[in-house]
């Protein structure tokens, strides 16, 4: 994936470029919104990772300009401002996701990868298929190797999210945000319990465990 990182803090930028490169992505770094805009206009990027507060042109201004120009590349906002209204302003400006600093690296990578995938699966699919696991979005049924799996509504949503991001790490925070639609710290890892229940339903009795725990990051559904 080609990623444009727009960040004025040199240390943060270095760490980010290094981490994303390690994860197998091609990363370009711009030091502020104005340079970021110039670089973005060259085209060819899959995701923009944009710091919200920068000199010259800030993240909001940069993303608004890009969206006005018709650039629909997914944007992940990074910000030290974590209040609800800040998140809302960021998303309104055209960002697709919002990550509050400081963040765990695994969280950043998971979110960046989720964003790029989102674009690919933008079309209206009625069936999701990962390995021998099949999900019918209309009938709301799930089969593995032809065997029907009975899921609770929330388990269905959870599995749908995992299937849409199959092969990628998804973090607990992402799951709480995207599946439950809550932005708060659940203290104990309540998400883990939901995952283990889902795992018991889709993996039990099958040779291959699809729902895997990624150490220090979260979970990944593997074909």
């Amino acid at each position, binding site marked *: 994936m080609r990623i444009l990182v727009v960040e004025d803090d040199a240390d943060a930028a270095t760490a980010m470029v290094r981490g994303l490169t390690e994860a197998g992505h091609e990363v370009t770094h711009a030091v502020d919104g104005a340079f970021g805009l110039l670089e973005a206009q060259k085209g060819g990027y899959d995701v923009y990772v944009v710091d919200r507060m920068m000199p010259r042109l800030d993240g909001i201004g940069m993303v608004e300009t890009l969206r006005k120009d018709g650039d629909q590349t997914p944007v992940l906002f990074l910000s030290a401002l*974590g*209040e*609800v*209204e800040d998140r*809302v302003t960021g998303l309104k400006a055209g960002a697709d996701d919002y990550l509050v600093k*400081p963040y*765990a690296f695994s969280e950043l990578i998971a979110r960046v990868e989720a964003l790029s995938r989102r674009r690919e699966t933008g079309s209206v699919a009625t069936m999701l298929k990962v390995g021998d696991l099949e999900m019918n979005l209309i009938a709301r049924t799930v089969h593995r190797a032809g065997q029907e799996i009975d899921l609770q509504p*929330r388990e269905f949503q959870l599995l749908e999210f995992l299937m849409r991001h199959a092969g990628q790490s998804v973090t607990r925070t992402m799951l709480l945000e995207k599946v*439950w639609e*809550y*932005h*708060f*710290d*659940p*203290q*104990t890892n*309540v998400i883990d*319990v*939901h995952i283990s*229940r889902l795992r018991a339903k889709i993996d039990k009795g099958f040779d291959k465990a699809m729902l895997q725990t990624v150490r*220090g990051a979260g979970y990944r559904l593997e074909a």
Partner: protein
Amino acid sequence: MRLPSILRRTPFRLTLLFLALFAAAASAILGYVYVASASEARARAETAVRSELESLTGIYKERGVDALNRALVDRALNDSPYLYLLMDAEGSVITGSLNASPISDYAEGEQWITYPYTDTDPEGRVTRPQARGVQVRLASGEMLFVARSMGDTEAYLARLTQALWAAMGIVLLLGLAGGLLVSRDLERSMGRLNKVVTAVQEGDLKARAPVRNSGDELDELGLGLNVMLDRLEGSMASIRHAGDAIAHDLRSPLTRMRAKLEVALIDAEAGRIDGVDALQVALDEADTLLKTFNTVLAIARLQAAAGAGRTPDPTLFDAADLAADMAELYEPASEDKGLEFSAEIERGLMIEANRPFLAQALANIIDNAIKYTPTGGAVMLRARRRSSGEIEFSVTDTGPGVPEGDRGRVIERFVRLDNSRTEPGSGLGLSLVGAVMEAHGGRIQLDEGPGAYGGFGPGLRVALVLPPAANA
């Protein structure tokens, strides 16, 4: 040049202003009285002179100039208040109490004049009071001048003027003295307030304005100042307490992290372990620290919002949905621990609140209930509308509960009861809940739970009570 301080004070300046206004008013009154009295005196003298003139011309018309002459002499000898002069056609004096006519350029008809004449007062001093007189030509060519003194009026006006000046003098003196007294009194009172302000500026938050309970504005100002200082001192104390607590609370995870890193360094150098594990531990500790910081910040923000009497980013939503989501989210974790989890949620609990913060508050109390209730116990979430219309969320558990004396304390920052220290936690969970309630105009209530339950108990019931949405 600087004036003595008292002369620069507002009350003294006001006194001077009022005195100046008074002097101006007195002068105006004096002027008016003078003008009015003078014209009145003139009019009176004129009327008298005219009737005397008519009487004299009557004598002349009936009996001729000699009779007039006799009448004049007669009247002059009889202490008449009038001054007379009879002259021949050329102006030479025939008879009268004057040496010459004050009208030197007499032509024809009635000619009036106001002039000073020479007189002596009872003590024999020469005075020059004003007189009003008229000169006419008689049919036979002689000229007659009749005048009357306006001296009485003059004396009256002189006395009046004198009296007014004296009054003004007294008023000025008293006013000045009063102004000085009021200024001094006010300066003392203000001085006391200023002293408090200066003391506070210099860092003494315990300084308070003396209050006399007189109910005047200065007393009110003093009272207001004291209330403000009480609140300031309270929040300073709470900030200091929080600061101390944060420093204290951050020290233990920092110390722990440092120790682990040190051990890891030694082990890694000796080739005994993989550095990755140690780094992971360090990262976890750093995350804990960050969480603590974030929670403290959130509490501060909520309390600031509560202080300003508003809720941050409120939205209108059904609290029943929120409660159901929380029940659904926490039920598996609760059952995994071997707790009976149940939820009773009334429908249609519209509320205007900050959804993420309220979710966090609810999550915190459910999480606490699950954390502190031993396996085999029960946790129950309830959401309902009270008969008062308020929305109530309550979480009841069958854990050890919180002794009555500690229930107020557990909401304070970083307070962890002795029996909870073995559990992970920052001691900020309930503080955050309390702050969320405060920012929503709600409250948190801690009560005893259902009592003994399967060998545990008495349990704890935590209720969050919120006002319903205004238009729901």
